[in-house]
């Protein structure tokens, strides 16, 4: 047993740090560090910097243009880039559809899509959820009917993250309505510019436009855009769900937020002393830090065995649950530390569109919105209740 990083790993960490110091644009970093909203261009600029460095496909095999990093290296990258305040690489292209295309797509699809994902030319979004199907994904209703060389798609997807910027969407659609639930589903890639697609914003409780409804009205999709075989889409989707889940714990970002919380709580006054000096508040922060330390070791344990066995199993559910609990608690304590300074709300400031001039202060102003925004983390990606079902069934055999 050895919990230390190897010298090679430490060297890699130094390299990553140097890269981030030299290449992460200050304005983007400022937004991430201060809980401001990222624009489309912020994401794209950072993506292109990474593409130039060759670090976009950090879980991809080298043959497809990936880095070929070990799981530990990938973890180091996740941690350092989170800690430094870089935006996360949006997962929809790089980590979600790409592995499916690599594994089940044909050569033409691989040759066309994968380079465009790496370069950032295509912005992808995910068409899984539907209004009637939340945790029960397989109950989806969007239909794709074969008509010559096309599928004609009708239906509705929802919770489609950043679809307003997207060039392409990957969808689960029902191609055989007579088959039982999972059996009649196919995996389709759809150009967002195809006629018949409408995107309607859903405004989140922090008033951010982050997700959308996507409507399909007789949308003609070339059969060439089908991944693998018809009616086998559920298999591909499941492969995707089991893929690389250790990033979900997001240790680096949580460490960054813990630093923010402490710095902020040192500056906020309570009874003319820093609120971090209040023993009761300090105990909450300390409990959170201890939880985060534990999760980091748990994560490393999973990461260190990732190469050896068949990918992370239900342990990923533990990472998801604890990771999101910690993230949520961090935002909760930030708002608590802010106190009345957390009340003023100014969406224009959060988007960087105007100065925030009221008394609450620039650091306090986004905290309420952040707290509200993070409530989603225990819901999406399989709600934490679903994760506990998985643990009970797969790890405990109940």
């Amino acid at each position, binding site marked *: 047993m050895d919990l230390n990083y190897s010298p090679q790993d430490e060297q890699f960490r130094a390299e990553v740090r140097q890269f981030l110091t030299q290449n992460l644009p200050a304005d983007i970093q400022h937004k991430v560090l201060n809980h401001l909203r990222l624009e489309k261009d912020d994401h794209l600029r950072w993506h292109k910097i990474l593409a130039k460095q060759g670090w976009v496909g950090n879980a991809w095999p080298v043959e497809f243009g990936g880095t070929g990093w070990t799981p530990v290296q990938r973890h180091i990258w996740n941690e350092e880039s989170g800690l430094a305040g870089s935006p996360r690489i949006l997962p929809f292209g790089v980590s979600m559809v790409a592995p499916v295309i690599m594994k089940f797509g044909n050569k033409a699809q691989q040759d066309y899509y994968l380079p465009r994902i790496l370069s950032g030319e295509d912005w992808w979004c995910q068409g899984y959820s539907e209004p009637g199907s939340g945790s029960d994904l397989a109950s989806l209703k969007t239909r794709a009917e074969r008509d010559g060389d096309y599928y004609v798609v009708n239906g509705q997807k929802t919770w489609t993250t950043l679809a307003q910027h997207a060039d392409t969407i990957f969808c689960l659609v029902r191609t055989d309505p007579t088959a039982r639930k999972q059996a009649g589903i196919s995996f389709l890639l759809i150009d967002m510019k195809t006629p018949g697609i409408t995107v309607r914003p859903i405004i989140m409780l922090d008033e951010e436009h982050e997700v959308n409804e996507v409507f399909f009205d007789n949308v003609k999709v070339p059969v060439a855009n089908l991944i693998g075989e018809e009616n086998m889409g559920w298999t591909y989707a499941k492969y995707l769900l089991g893929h690389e889940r250790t990033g979900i714990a997001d240790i680096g970002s949580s460490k960054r937020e813990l630093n923010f919380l402490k710095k902020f709580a040192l500056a906020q006054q309570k009874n003319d002393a820093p609120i971090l000096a209040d023993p009761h508040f300090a105990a909450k922060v300390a409990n959170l830090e201890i939880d985060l330390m534990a999760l980091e070791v748990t994560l490393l344990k999973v990461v260190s065995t990732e190469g050896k066995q068949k990918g992370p199993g239900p342990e990923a559910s533990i990472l998801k649950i604890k990771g999101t609990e910690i993230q949520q608690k961090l935002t909760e304590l930030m708002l608590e530390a802010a106190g009345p300074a957390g009340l003023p709300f100014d969406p224009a400031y959060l988007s960087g569109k105007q100065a925030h001039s009221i008394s609450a202060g620039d650091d306090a102003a986004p905290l309420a919105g952040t707290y*509200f925004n993070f409530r989603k983390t225990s819901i999406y990606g399989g709600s934490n209740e679903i994760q506990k079902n998985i643990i009970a069934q797969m790890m405990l055999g109940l």
Partner: protein
Amino acid sequence: MDFEYSQEQQQFTDSIRRWAESNYDFESRKQIIYSDTGVSNKAWNAMAELGMTALPVPEEQGGFAGSAVDMMGVMQEIGRSLCVEPYFATMFGAEFLAASHSHADVLEQVASGEIKLACALNEKQSRYELNNITTSVTANASGFVLNGNKTTVLHGAQAQLLIVSARSNAASRAADGISLLLVDPSLAGVTIKNYRTLDGLQASDIEFKNVQLSTGSIIGEMGTAWELLDAVSDYGVTLLCAEAVGCMEALIAATLEYLKTRQQFGTPIGKFQVLQHRMADMLIELEQAKSLTTLAASKAHASDAQERRKAVSAAKVKVGQAGKFIGQQAVQLHGGMGVTNELAAAHYFKRLTTIDLTLGDVDHHLARFIALPDFAKAA
């Protein structure tokens, strides 16, 4: 001993509920929030007509002399309808005048709904300590001169008169040396910056720069207003607790409805035992919060200040905890829909969150509870 509202009380709150259901529904409210002023004069006039503004005002000033328990019923409806009008700010302000038996003319105008009030008590460094005041008031030949800055003044820009706390002497956290003043915001030297709060209400930062006040501006007595400020802020806390109870009741009802109708895996999600127990936990928290709010309301005007402080701080602690738990869990049980602005659920959650951040959060009132002489005195 009787825990039921009287028939009169029940009729009064029923009439408010009927009005809100027909005239202050979720969509109307949204339009008000995104309107230029962020409040609705029409709604305000209707509320005054229902007698809401007159309820707590003494009879001599044209009110109904309603008790804190009477107000509890009304504030629950304010919570239920997520009302963003300056009702709380005005009633809170009016209590300063009623409790100090001063400014009868203003109270008359409050009762009739002619004017709105706001309370400028917070400062940037004060957090929840109302005695932590740097705004200064000094006497001069014409009356008083006011200097200082107040923050997060709820509905400060919508009020025709402000109740302002200031200090005439002693150190910044002393109970001694505190005065309360009634200030017309249109006076020279008053600058108001209005903004929205995260729950859709309005608030403002207010600067007072050499504002000349008349001698009649004083509420209570010069330099000895701490007891008044402390007592009336307890009254304000009680109102907020009652509003939160209304929010929680409505939020639990909405969540229950969602659990009964939303289908997953071929069954209403309310059939899942984990969600059933979660709802039971939420209900228990609500019940406890309601109980302490009732206790606080019945002690809000208690002659024994320690008894009042104990009940009020206990209520604010429990309401804060229950509000957070119920708010977070209601959102969680609503799933994706819970985190959108499109359902009322998110808005109840937001209002519950801001209530905790107003007039002292859980930890503030927990510390106040512990500091009461009663706490460490083992019987």
